[in-house]
């Protein structure tokens, strides 16, 4: 069987995302090197008010766009369409929240309301709201994977990892709840709970994708799992150092954790879009094309 691959930009989108992320990280390493040798000359500042960097927002926008493209491949009522819709909404809300956080730092934002309110709305959208939608989308996907027979019962190591995740969340929750409960800490608490749910989903996604193999569909769902693990690592690192106030650490983590995590999230729909383009770019002129409805369905994923 000869394969004539369609080399449109969309089929090579995953490679572009990896290349951009690699270049971004190299640039970050170079900036860190320069800063380490000339730290007295200038200071590194985090994005104001905990807002996300424009690069992270830009990558989230790319993720939303790839999700829209992936969504278009599915007809109304298709089982996975709902999952992609929720994931697309989560990416779109991430972008909206990030932009609001950025807008809060602008002097003109006072016309829209208090800068603190705008910033908090932004954090709420790009934090708990985005995570809740992502968790819902991945839950739909996990249900489909289970119905198609890709569900894997975790082994002892898997359950141990799940236990550590839950324990970490509870510890963090207890530590945060013990202090004064403000709007920011409430957002942080909800965020940590959702991250725990996402981490458990990521564990099952990882195992299911590992059972599939190394095709683009498996890579897509594995990418979501890796992205969540990276975010979990970043959150754990921030919490462990207990320094949300140290600007340089937040900036470094944002550079090395949030951007790669969002890039990995963008990679997931990019893999699906590339696979769809690859499939529809090949064999479309085959004379022996039969509709799928001509074949009996063995099981339903609905």
């Amino acid at each position, binding site marked *: 069987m000869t394969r004539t691959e369609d080399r449109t930009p969309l089929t090579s989108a995953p490679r572009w995302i990896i290349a951009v992320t690699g270049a971004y990280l190299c640039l970050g390493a170079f900036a860190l090197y320069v800063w380490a040798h000339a730290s007295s000359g200038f200071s590194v500042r985090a994005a104001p008010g905990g807002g996300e960097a424009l690069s992270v927002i830009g990558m989230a926008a790319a993720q939303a766009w790839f999700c829209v493209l992936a969504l278009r491949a599915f007809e109304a009522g298709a089982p996975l369409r709902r999952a992609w819709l929720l994931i697309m909404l989560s990416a779109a809300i991430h972008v909206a929240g990030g932009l609001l956080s950025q807008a809060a730092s602008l002097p003109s934002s006072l016309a829209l309301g208090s800068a603190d309110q705008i910033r908090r709305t932004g954090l709420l959208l790009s934090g708990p709201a985005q995570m809740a939608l992502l968790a819902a989308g991945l839950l739909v996907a996990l249900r489909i994977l289970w119905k198609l027979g890709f569900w894997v019962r975790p082994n002892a190591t898997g359950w141990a990892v799940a236990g550590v995740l839950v324990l970490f969340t509870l510890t963090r929750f207890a530590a945060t709840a013990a202090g004064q409960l403000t709007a920011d800490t409430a957002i942080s608490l909800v965020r940590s709970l959702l991250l725990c749910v996402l981490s458990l989903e990521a564990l099952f996604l990882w195992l299911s994708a590992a059972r599939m193999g190394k095709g683009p569909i498996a890579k897509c769902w594995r990418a979501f799992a890796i992205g969540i693990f990276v975010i979990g690592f970043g959150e754990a690192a921030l919490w462990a150092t207990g320094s949300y106030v140290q600007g340089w650490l937040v900036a470094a983590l944002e550079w090395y954790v949030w951007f790669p995590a969002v890039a990995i999230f963008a990679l997931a729909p990019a893999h699906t879009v590339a696979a769809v383009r690859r499939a529809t770019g090949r*064999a479309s002129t085959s004379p022996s094309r039969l509709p799928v409805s001509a074949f009996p369905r063995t099981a339903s994923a609905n």
Partner: protein
Amino acid sequence: MHPRTATLVSFSDAELNPARGRRIARHLQQCPNCQAALERISQEKRSLSALAGPDRPAIDTQRGLAGVLAGMARWREAPAPELRSRARAQIEIYLGCGAASLMESPDIRADELLAKTLELISTFLGQEAAEAVTGEILRGLDCAALTAEVLP
């Protein structure tokens, strides 16, 4: 005494010698069972002629109905291993080797594997991609034979 099926096949192909042919014709005028058997043979031959293609293995009509059935079995089976390997290849391309091994149980028929492949592709990549992959799998295969085999 009723003629054997192979004799009826030869009769329908006008391959018997004239004396024996006349005897069979006389018997057929009196025997409704043999008339029905001859009708069945004619129908099978018509359906085979309708499905005949240039790449299909030749049917050995010289050996009577057994030859017809053997020929029929040959062309029905011929695309199945190819179909199976192509369906497996598509699962490996889009999902991976693990998924292909999971789907291809030892007792699964080729058309069932094809249906599973299309279900997977349709679920994960959408209907249009599934239709394109169908085309890729069936390209160059004997679609008429496969359709007759797959559809009840």
